[in-house]
């Protein structure tokens, strides 16, 4: 069988990573985006997103990838994934106008036998409304994880495929493409697949919320959450891969959207959403942990304190600042002098009028009263606490994610705070 040509409409984080991973699996790939500047940049090897391995794979597979702004190029494709960003409004509700438009454009630009796959996350009920007579349409659950997107696209745990009828066989072309990834394929009706995606995220949110709730308690009663976690992971009902690392609430935008989707559906259908609402409240509460601590340990005593901040991205290995706790913190201390360093995100994103763009981690520590490490970039853990202590005027380090070694910090006289354990 001739290998199908795979198209991707929408050069978003999801679309680009998925397209590049298909090329890595030796498929010819056509990547379409109507944004001419974006396509031009991609053809020059300039990526607007940051993901481990992505640059290398684009370069390695450039002969197999066509970046184009001409939608007619999709006519050559046997399968086209539609993967625009689905924006959310201020209330976390999805705006489906983009995906509606791109899906229509894709249907019109492709051959009747071309398989169309909705890859962006959509609310339950969306895909069935898009069905066109004589066309084949699937919804494929994406499980993109920022910072691990390439790895997860190349080696998926499973594929969840939403179909018009779960009893119907998958298109042979589509099945042959999915087979290249060598993972279980779970076929179900559209609505189940759409809700499966949200269900995965809800389970993650529940784990994170439980971890955050208990970690906060640990901080107050003298327990250490990091000592408890291994015990939980050895419990088969919880599992070694469970999300039990405490954090600053839920960020990134995707999980928040799912919480809002479930809450809205529950409100509409009269089902109980108490757990969801509690998760949202807990997320907001924990996001502001560094702010409360900052006030307690320094600003309350010294309103002119200078704060060093490492990290702006909502998590490591990404340039996304959507719902970033760091940005929330900097917004809340908008009139405090801050020295900020992030390896990827520009300080122009900082909503603070007294922000110094630090050139390095240590530059961000210069003469500061307190250092707050808001994103656990791997490179941060390589900075020697002795050097940090030397550069700082004060001696307080707030390190929610344990980017630094607590003992090493304390050994050089730093007062160290982290999540899940009393200082």
């Amino acid at each position, binding site marked *: 069988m001739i290998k199908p040509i795979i198209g991707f409409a929408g050069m978003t984080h999801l679309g680009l990573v998925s397209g590049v991973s298909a090329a890595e699996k030796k498929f010819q790939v056509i990547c379409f985006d109507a944004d001419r500047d974006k396509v031009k940049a991609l053809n020059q090897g300039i990526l607007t997103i940051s993901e481990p391995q992505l640059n290398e794979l684009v370069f390695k597979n450039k002969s197999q990838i066509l970046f184009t702004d001409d939608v007619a190029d999709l006519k050559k494709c046997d399968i086209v994934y539609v993967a625009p960003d689905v924006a959310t409004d201020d209330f976390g509700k999805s705006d489906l106008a983009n995906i509606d438009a791109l899906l229509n454009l894709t249907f019109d630009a492709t051959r009747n036998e071309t398989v169309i796959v909705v890859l962006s996350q959509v609310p339950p009920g969306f895909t069935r409304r898009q069905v066109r007579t004589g066309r084949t349409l699937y919804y494929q659950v994406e499980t993109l994880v920022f910072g691990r997107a390439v790895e997860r696209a190349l080696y998926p745990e499973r594929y969840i495929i939403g179909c018009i009828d779960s009893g119907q066989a998958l298109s042979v072309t589509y099945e042959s493409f999915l087979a290249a990834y060598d993972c279980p394929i779970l076929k179900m009706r559209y609505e189940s697949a759409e809700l499966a995606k949200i269900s995965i995220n809800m389970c993650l949110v529940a784990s994170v919320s439980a971890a955050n709730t208990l970690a906060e308690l640990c901080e107050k009663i003298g327990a250490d959450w990091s000592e408890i976690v291994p015990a939980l992971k050895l419990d088969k009902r919880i599992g070694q891969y469970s999300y039990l690392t405490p954090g600053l609430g839920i960020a990134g935008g995707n999980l928040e959207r799912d919480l809002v989707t479930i809450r809205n559906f529950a409100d509409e259908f009269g089902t109980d959403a108490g757990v969801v609402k509690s998760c949202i409240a807990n997320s*907001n*509460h924990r996001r*502001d942990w560094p*702010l*409360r601590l900052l*006030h307690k340990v320094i600003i309350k005593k010294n*309103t002119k304190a200078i704060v060093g901040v490492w990290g702006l991205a909502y998590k490591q290995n990404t340039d996304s600042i959507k719902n970033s706790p760091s940005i929330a913190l900097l917004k*809340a*201390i*908008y009139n405090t002098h801050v020295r900020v360093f992030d390896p990827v995100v520009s300080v122009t994103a900082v909503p603070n009028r007294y922000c110094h763009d630090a050139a390095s981690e240590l530059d961000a520590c210069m003469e500061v009263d307190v250092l707050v490490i808001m994103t656990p970039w791997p490179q941060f853990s390589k900075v020697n606490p002795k050097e940090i202590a030397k550069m700082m005027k004060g001696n307080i380090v707030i390190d929610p994610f344990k980017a630094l070694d607590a003992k090493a910090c304390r050994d050089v006289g730093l007062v160290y705070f982290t999540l899940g354990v009393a200082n």
Partner: protein
Amino acid sequence: MLNHLNCASEKPNRVVVVGGTGFLGKCVVKKLIEENVKVMSLGSKEVDLVSQSSVDLLGKLLKSSDTVMFLSAITPDKSRDIAAFIKNILMVKHLCEALKNAEVAHLIYFSSDAVYGQTQSLISEDTPVAPQDLYGVMHLSRELMLSELTHIPTAILRITAVYGAGDTHTSYGPNRFLKSSLQNKRIDLFGCGEELRDHIYGDDVAVIAKLCVYMRSCGLINVATGESVAFKRVAELVAGKLNGPINIQQTPRSNPITHKHFDTTNLLKAFPCLCLNDLENGLRLTQIHKQEN
């Protein structure tokens, strides 16, 4: 959450403190005068808010450029009965009628954390209100009545337990402990005094109110320190501030233990440089002021 209508701190033309002769009112008036703000303090002698005649009187006194702070209330230590409730509601009814005809630049209402009741241990502005007594219902009703004044930017301050030198109330906590220590060398605790509560120093409430005035803030904010302390500890701190031994007496408990904490994140966001006194310091200041007076 509060929103500031002023981009930068700005002194108001005049602040009319309705209820300026009570404990908290005095703290606020003192703070504003220290800041050289023009203040008109009104007590029940100047304006009897329970009377319908207060509508016209307020109408004549208020200017469109005024900031109005409303603190008047019959507090629970004076009366918790239905008559007090009705009078408290009447006061705000008359204020609302006056403000319907006389526009003012800004309104700040001093509400209470009693609107939350006792069912929640961690309270933020998102906590659903569930008043469990007429006093709580009264404050909530007043908030709703004032929210009808949509043409006036309004800030609602839900204040937790206040203490300070001039406090005439004898509610359970720092004030009563100080009073009974001075009078009887004794503090009576309910049970072992395990309950945790947030106590805020009166002058700190005045600082927050002043910041609201200067920033022309509107919205809702809880006014608390974010640090809850057990009554036993409060008693020990009070006893430690006084000369001579104080007998801290435990008494049989008649109610189950409840705790109350405040998540003050929104307050910190509204006023990033806010420095509030902790209980120990607040008690020290209270003691100093008591001795001065």
